[in-house]
């Protein structure tokens, strides 16, 4: 077990390292000079050159990469070319929004997904099951950005219940929560559709097992069997899926934040790619990759804890 954890952790770090090299190389290959992009079309060549020196862009790429990597060990994620502040500061500034969105999205996902899945399994073969599976099919096929637009159209443009985009900041908690409802719903709908399916099939599989039939034959009520026997056993695969979905929801915020114009990390990363703001992109890609990789890692660990025999297979 300990060896397993160690090897997986090393693999995790190696993955992140390779990703950072890929990002660095791509960003340096991309046409576009950060200094010129920042200064715009009315700037003089001298001013651009001066800014290049100030930002350290006059030094060779590998040196800048080396400095960045050594900086990481001191907890320094580099400077933003565009905003001229430490990358860490930018991330910390925008993290609360993305985090709130992801947490809200995840909460809705789990709540709706498991509930719908269990209900569908309980009403297996009946119209309720059929309806929920239809919802699930639709949820999986619907493009998140279109769903967002539809939600805005219905709840912001026609009904005017909720704001169509933007974020007022947590100083005004009620408004802030309101502006997160639509994006979180858009995030959660697709994921809860997936989760509902998994929950349903897992519950159905457990319900097909002999001991459940025995329990039912003993005269236990349908609901009682469901709660006492089916759910606890069916939840194991569900929890692993939820773990994987944490990664999907967090990366899902990238697109959703852009559709709803939310000033979070997802919007920042698009802006930063456009601005050639290398270290911000670097920091954010690593952030998102870390979340995904760690979520997967934790799922694997959970697997092994539940069933130590899996250790070999996962290797």
């Amino acid at each position, binding site marked *: 077990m300990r060896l397993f954890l160690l090897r997986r952790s090393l*693999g995790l770090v*190696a*993955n*992140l390292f*390779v*990703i950072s090299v*890929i*990002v660095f190389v*791509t*960003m340096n*290959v*991309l046409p576009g000079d950060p200094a010129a992009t920042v200064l715009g079309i009315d700037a003089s060549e001298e001013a651009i050159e001066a800014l290049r020196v100030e930002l350290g862009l006059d030094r060779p790429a590998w040196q800048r990469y080396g400095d960045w990597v050594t900086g990481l060990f001191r907890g320094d994620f580099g400077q933003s070319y565009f905003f001229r502040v430490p990358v860490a500061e930018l991330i910390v500034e925008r993290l609360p929004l993305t985090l709130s969105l992801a947490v809200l999205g995840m909460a809705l996902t789990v709540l709706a997904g498991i509930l719908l899945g269990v209900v569908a399994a309980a009403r*297996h*073969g009946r119209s309720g099951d059929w309806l929920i599976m239809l919802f699930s*099919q*639709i949820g*999986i*096929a*619907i*493009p998140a*950005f*279109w769903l967002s*637009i*539809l939600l*805005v*159209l219905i709840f912001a*443009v026609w009904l005017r219940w909720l704001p169509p985009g933007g974020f007022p900041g947590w100083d005004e908690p009620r408004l802030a929560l309101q502006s997160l409802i639509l994006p979180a719903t858009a995030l959660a709908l697709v994921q809860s559709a997936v989760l509902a399916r998994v929950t349903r*099939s897992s519950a*159905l*599989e457990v*319900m*097909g097992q002999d001991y459940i039939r025995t329990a039912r034959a003993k005269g236990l009520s349908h609901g009682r069997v469901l709660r006492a026997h089916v759910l606890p056993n069916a939840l194991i695969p569900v929890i692993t899926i939820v773990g994987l979905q944490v990664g999907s929801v967090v*990366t899902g915020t*990238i*697109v959703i934040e*852009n*559709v709803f114009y939310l000033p979070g990390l997802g919007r920042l*990363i*698009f802006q930063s*790619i456009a601005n050639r703001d290398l270290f911000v992109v670097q920091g954010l*890609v690593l952030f*998102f*990759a870390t979340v*995904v*990789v760690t979520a*997967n890692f934790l799922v694997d660990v959970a697997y092994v804890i539940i069933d130590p025999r899996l250790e070999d297979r996962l290797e």
Partner: protein
Amino acid sequence: MRGLPIGLALGALLVGLLGVTGLLSLVWTPHDPAAIDVALRFRDPSADHPLGTDQLGRDMLSRLMAASVNTLVVAFLAVAAGGLIGVALGLMASALGGWAEALVMRACDLGFAFPAILLAVMLSTAFGPSLGNTILAIAFINVPVFARVTRGAANQIWARDFVTAARALGLSGAEITWRHILPNIAPLLIVQATIEFAVAILAEAALSYLGLGAQPPTPSWGRMLSEAQTLMFLAPDLAILPGLCIFLAVLGFGLLGDGLRDLTDPRLVRARVNA
């Protein structure tokens, strides 16, 4: 089993409809999808324009039809290219085992850890926005998916008795892969490809939505959607229709893939019998 499952039938119908529309639009659309006439903008549906006109007075139906070709071509080429490379890598990993297998699988982990949309955006910006580069970016995302699925399935076949027998007969790894492994996992791969088709359509739409896909005047659903987004107050149907097309196309391939999987996966059939 009572005939074709409804999901599979619906999926096949949607996919068939999409294919027919795409082929038809190559030879005929009600209007020239690129013909601009600003005086005709934002028209409601009429006999001449069954789905109305867009912000530049172009016929919506013609544009939606023409865009289906774009979608199908991108999705097909991306899945084909990504699938070929991914399957080859997966088969190789499975046949060789050892460090080669580990290397391929670690590379796949990498592919999964990198948020796909970011990868596509960075590739598209690096090579410039165009149809070809969109295909490249989506194909790239597909490679690890196919590699992982192929390797997993191939490993199971390798453990079977008839493969052991073939090996005892002195067949090389490549021969066994070609004669025994590939035919046995082919149904699974076809199912996976159908599902990846749906994913590719979504990815193309997302990239076009972000302005990185096909360039004007080639119509694409994703770009139509993003252009219509600011017009929501004025002409909501312009945002609804292209999204509906994406949705139906993805739904079609998704249902088809699921239906095919149910048909080929004996485990699920057993679950159905039990229930």
